């Protein structure tokens, strides 16, 4: 593995997110990327198609492009996604799948993804060959009280093959409110760090929603803005790091809620 890829991996690690992370704030029950990225299925029955682009730390050659589609049948949820990160000689392609079940009060899901370097031919079969990297995880959430949602997400319970660009540890979180909301997150320690703690706020003035989150080690923050018009939803997010600079994410989603699940 060359130095460029190592640098890319280090940057991705500092980003605290990976292939299918959209631009939505944490803990919402309606984020389109919840099942695929964190194994947290949406509480509402819906169909969603989304694309997103992330430019990591202002580096033009370091971008992640992802396309995801998710759907539901009664209380069951499923999602499928494909993403590419970086230049052809340094980056990787990821295929992800998520399955879960949810009601208004609780949900649980499983996620898995296969990752392969972009300089190797990619295909559905090759994605699961020994040369590819794989990971699987699970998550669960429930409504602890009216307006209070608690979740646990372990996106990398199991890994195989090439190491993932980012080691993602267990995350615990609690959120009060839906559109006007506040949340806290706790990330378990990984080898080489002492975990992470985050505090966020969200304010909604229809059709807009603005949010901000601060995290520690090192102290840094994120701000985001969402707009929803009919079935169309646009999310933008900026992460600021004191050393690495800014990461910008844009996501566009078409989301149609079919009916409420019980």
């Amino acid at each position, binding site marked *: 593995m060359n130095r460029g890829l190592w640098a890319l991996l280090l940057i991705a690690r500092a980003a605290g997110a990976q292939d299918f992370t959209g631009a939505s704030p944490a803990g919402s029950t309606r984020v389109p990327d919840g099942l695929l990225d964190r194994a947290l299925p949406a509480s509402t029955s819906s169909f969603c198609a989304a694309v997103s682009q992330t430019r990591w730390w202002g580096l033009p050659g370091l971008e992640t492009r992802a396309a995801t589609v998710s759907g539901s049948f009664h209380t069951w949820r499923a999602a499928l996604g494909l993403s590419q990160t970086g230049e052809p000689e340094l980056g990787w392609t990821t295929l992800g799948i998520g399955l879960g079940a949810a009601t208004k009060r*609780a949900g649980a899901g499983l996620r898995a993804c296969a990752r392969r370097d972009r300089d190797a031919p990619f295909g559905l079969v090759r994605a699961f060959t020994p040369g590819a990297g794989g990971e699987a995880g*699970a998550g669960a*959430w429930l409504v*602890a009280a009216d307006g209070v949602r608690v979740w646990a997400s372990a996106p990398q319970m199991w890994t195989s093959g090439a190491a993932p660009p980012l080691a993602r540890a*267990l995350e615990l979180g609690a959120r009060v409110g839906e559109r006007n909301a506040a949340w806290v997150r706790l990330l*378990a*320690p990984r080898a080489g760090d002492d975990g992470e703690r985050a505090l966020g706020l969200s304010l909604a003035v229809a059709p807009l929603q603005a949010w901000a989150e601060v995290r520690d080690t090192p102290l840094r923050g994120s701000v985001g803005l969402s707009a929803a018009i009919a079935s169309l939803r646009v999310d933008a997010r900026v992460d600021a790091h004191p050393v690495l600079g800014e990461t910008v994410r844009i996501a566009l989603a078409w989301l149609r809620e079919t009916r409420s699940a019980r």
Partner: protein
Amino acid sequence: MIARHGAAIALLLAASAAFAQPPEPPPEAGEGDYTLEQADSLDDAEFEVAIGAGSTGGSQLRRSQRVSFRGGGARGTLRDGDEALSGGRVEAPLAGGTLAAGRLAPRWGRGLALGGAGEPWVFTAEDRGAGARYRGRSGAGLAYESRGASVFGGRFAKRDVFGTRVRAGPGALGMLAGGGTAQGSVSLDGEDRSAELAFDPRGRWRAEAALSDAIGETHVALRIRGGLAAFRSLAEPARAGPSHALAASAARELPFGTASAFGALWAWRAGQAGARAALEVDARLGQHGSFACGAEDQHGPRREPSPRARPSGTRQGWWCEWRGGSPGARLALRHELWGTRALARDAVRRAVVARADWAAPYGGRLALTHAVWRARSGESLYLPEAWSDRLVLRASSGAGSRTRCELRLPLAAGTVRLGLSLATGGTRAAGRRPAWSVEWSRRSRIATASASSRGSVHALRGTDGEDHQLRVVRHARSRQGARGEGPEHHPPRDR
């Protein structure tokens, strides 16, 4: 000095006990995982059979069988093929008393001569004596106990030990013999007062008294111990504990939950003293939820250190745990942090655990537990893993994670339990393939006359589990040597 001691006692009395502390490996436990056997939950005239298989991550397959029974005054459990809990124990009524054979774990009085706890802050060992929460394994042999007397003989701590005890009212007089020496025990066991004096022919002795009472609506307990450091139980020398100890606990029900605290001071020998104090609040949240948090301060060695051991540092820690959901879907989260400075700064141990379990079709249950930890070099911790008949304390160090998935389903008039564990990072099981286990068990009633009044005999038991089984992280122990006995004995470590 008197004023300082008085202040300490007042402080201890003002504190109360963290009764919800999960169990820890006893002092005689070696390195690695430790398994506690649950006391059986059989009703009268019931028996249970279980067969199982599993792997510990390698290619070797391990098979096991278990039979438990209870009826007509007899009871017992026999195990085969079980690496951690092999052997068994059988009891039967005989001549107005009870004859027991196999694994023995007796306790006399306060446990100074037989059946002590070992930890300075523990009032009564949880795996010794009749009615203990866990079935201990202090020795193997034969024992007979009647209303006024008891006698036993067996192999304890690699030596043959014989004991006899006579009781009259609350008083008891006992004698232990083995290894060419003897020990005596005089004890008083009242409902809320107990005391014991243990001694040997060379003049070494220890004495301990404990009392519990209520001050208003606050339940308090106090334990005080004194004696010579050289005194050790013939049967269980590793559980001698400190020669001087003072411990107090208190608990009070409040409108929102229970507040409890405990404090303990102890001295292993001159210059090697320790202290521990904790506060804990356990609040109820609705019908099924709860939130508990606590803080603790530790000084000095928790386990008996070697005479040349360097003084142990301070540890301050705090933890919080939330549980919620309904019987159909539950979630439990826990975070625990320990540091060497005030307010748990300069962290040496951190653990985050999540456990979710759901009701499965046909009356089954699916549970998933994921734990992530990071411990500084020289520190380690234990992660409890509850099985159907045992509690396994997984030794962990460094940085790593452990995932366990369990599925319990009714099958063939019994219950089948499937388990899959995966460990990464700082644990002995790290890097291996996933460990799996399968166990089928069936519990049946010998006499059917009263079965209808007690529900289905094939109903899944222990669905909700005990509280401690969700108390997913327990305290850690640091790596500091201590003196033990016997060539096979691994030095107990300070935790």
